[in-house]
């Protein structure tokens, strides 16, 4: 089982490495959205500091969601997905490995670049770590839950827009708790409680989401 997941992980990462522009697009989207907000609401530092956690988290949500449609679509198009469905390896493990690869390619860069955005928004230095940590715990949940939506909308017309309609309401708890952790830390109460909650969400999503995605994939590929 570990062999299978490592194999899938390596393959997906290799594919991502061959198509670097896809990876760069998600990251660039994140940077651009985060940079648009000050242009819209004005560059008053106190205001920027106040909206920073929410804006950065919303940008992360959208960026993660936009790259979801690639998760299964390419494999579906070239027939690899059918082989995965027929293969001996449990489908849940395959899906979990693909979600992990998606996070490494689309989520981890956001975590790494988040201190840079935090600087743009003039967040105090102590909060950069909390922000990065909350993103590191929260974005995997987005990949896992998003995989369900990606599996459900596989091969449908208007799949991209539909995907956002399905997935964004399910992202709400992650957004609230993730942005809340930074705000709590900014208020001097420490964000530990929220970070623990995010960790709990991650644990729950890691157990149940691959299973639900596998069921959705079987339905879509019938």
């Amino acid at each position: 089982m570990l062999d299978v997941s490592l194999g899938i992980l390596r393959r997906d990462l290799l594919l991502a490495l061959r198509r670097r522009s896809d990876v760069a697009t998600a990251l660039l989207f994140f940077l651009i959205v985060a940079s648009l907000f000050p242009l819209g609401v004005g560059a008053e530092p106190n205001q920027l500091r106040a909206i920073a956690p929410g804006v950065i988290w919303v940008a992360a949500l959208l960026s993660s969601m936009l790259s979801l449609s690639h998760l299964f679509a390419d494999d579906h198009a070239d027939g690899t997905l059918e082989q995965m469905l027929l293969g001996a390896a449990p489908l849940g493990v395959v899906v979990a490995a693909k979600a992990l690869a998606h996070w490494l390619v689309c989520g981890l860069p956001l975590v790494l670049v988040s201190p840079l955005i935090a600087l743009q928004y003039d967040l105090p230095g102590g909060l950069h770590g909390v922000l990065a940590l909350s993103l590191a715990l929260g974005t995997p949940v987005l990949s896992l839950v998003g995989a369900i939506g990606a599996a459900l909308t596989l091969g449908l017309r208007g799949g991209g827009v539909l995907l956002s309609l399905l997935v964004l309401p399910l992202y709400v708890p992650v957004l609230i708790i993730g942005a809340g952790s930074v705000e709590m830390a900014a208020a001097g109460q420490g964000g530990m409680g929220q970070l623990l909650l995010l960790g709990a969400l991650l644990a729950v999503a890691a157990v149940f989401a691959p299973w639900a995605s596998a069921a959705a994939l079987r339905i879509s590929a019938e």
Partner: protein
Amino acid sequence: MKWFWYASPETFFPLAGRLAYGCGIAAALLAVAGLYVGFFVAPTDATQGEVYRIIFIHVPAAWMSMLLYLAMAFWAALGLALNTRLSGMMARAIAPSGALFTFIALWTGALWGKPTWGAYWVWDARLTSELILLFLYLGFMALQASIDDRRRSDRAGAVLAIVGAVNVPIIYFSVQWWNTLHQGASVSFAKAPSMAATMFTGMILMVLAFWMYSFAVTFVRVRCLIREQG
């Protein structure tokens, strides 16, 4: 009692017709009685005046909106587990009613909020989670509408409904927590004044009317779905 006798669309079709008829009449009678009690018998509220009377629409609609989501998820899960065709049709038939009641609850809530809180929309935990519930309903309906193959559509919708049902409590509690973080509870339902007996009667009558309406409409829709698939 043979539960599975009516699991076949063929045998359920005539039963649904009779039930829809009965429930429809019951809904009309209950609604007339409930509205009469609500508008003419129930006393004027001491603090809110006449405007509170929207409660007779608002509260039943909010209850139904949540209940119908659970009912929808229940039928969807049953359809996924037992592979019965009728279960999928039930889930599909319930969704529009649920979305309608969610919308009514939000709309009447806004109309109620303006005179009492001074704003049409407040980011209260209940309003916000109700709004997200509406999005969940719309997502379910959009997903089912975009899949032409009925069987795949039912099963895909079922997975989404179950995932949504698991998420609803998480969303509710996270929104509640977020609300307490952002604004010191500006709107509190905790100190709800004890209700006059006639107000309560009116509300219960309206709840029953909404129940009967949901049954009737669902049965009519199921009949249409059965005919469509014929």
